[in-house]
């Protein structure tokens, strides 16, 4: 082999190896690092003032962020009611909302939530929320799926 070819070949090898490592590193996205914050379980329910006992929870449950000022939340509300009627436990987190508006909203549209808490934004921050509505599907204490924006029938049919 000619000597002058060694450098380009070496260059290509370095390029190949570093590209391999670069792409193998994996991106930290899609809530890979997000875990359920402790404050989710330590915050008392808005109505019965009880905190959430993790033993009461099924293997599969849902965490749903909503607000009374959010129109798409209203669009997905019937689906949450249907999920609840099929026995799904839904933890509702009322995100940065006025208390009176929130109570009125629940009275008007129904309460599908197993546990309902009000959040000033800190739980949302810890769970990497981008906007309401946002829904996390939890299986065995791990976030399995996240739906940003309103739920559609396809998102929940597996759980019905």
């Amino acid at each position, binding site marked *: 082999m000619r000597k002058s*070819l060694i*450098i*380009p070949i070496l260059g290509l090898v370095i*390029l190949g190896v570093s*590209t391999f490592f670069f792409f193998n590193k994996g991106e930290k996205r899609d809530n890979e690092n997000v875990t359920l914050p402790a404050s989710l379980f330590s915050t008392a329910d808005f109505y019965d003032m009880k905190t959430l006992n993790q033993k009461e929870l099924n293997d599969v449950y849902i965490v749903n962020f909503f607000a009374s000022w959010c129109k798409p939340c209203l669009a997905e509300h019937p689906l949450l009611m249907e999920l609840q009627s099929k026995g799904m436990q839904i933890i509702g987190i009322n995100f940065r909302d006025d208390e009176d508006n929130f109570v009125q909203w629940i009275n008007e549209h129904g309460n599908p939530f197993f546990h309902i808490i009000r959040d000033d934004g800190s739980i949302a*921050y810890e769970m*990497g929320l981008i*906007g309401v509505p946002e829904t996390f599907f939890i299986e065995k204490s791990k976030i399995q799926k996240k739906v940003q924006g309103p739920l559609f029938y396809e998102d929940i049919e597996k759980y019905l």
Partner: protein
Amino acid sequence: MKILKNIYNLFFIFFFFLFSNLSLANINQLSEYYKTIRCLVCEGQSIQESETEFAINLKEQIQKKYESGMDLKDINQELISIYGEEISFKPSNDHFILWGLPLLLLVIVIFLVRHKYKK
């Protein structure tokens, strides 16, 4: 009347800084930091400029953490671990391939061309 209004404003500003934990320097440091954080709802803007609920909440949470004594570096690290690298406008140093690749390709091409013309 104008003088009275000015005095009132001065008093307001004085009491605002007296009772708030943030000094002017800290406010500046925080707003400079906000400029490096991308609003994920309206991706062209930083959270400093954005008025979305996401940006407002993020600013509040960052300020809370900052006031409780957390370092901006640690806050940044936490943000990246929650939202991914796209949250920051400042790329981390481990993207060396992105910067080094054109240079490396240039060197390879020069050697290949030289090799061909030597023949």
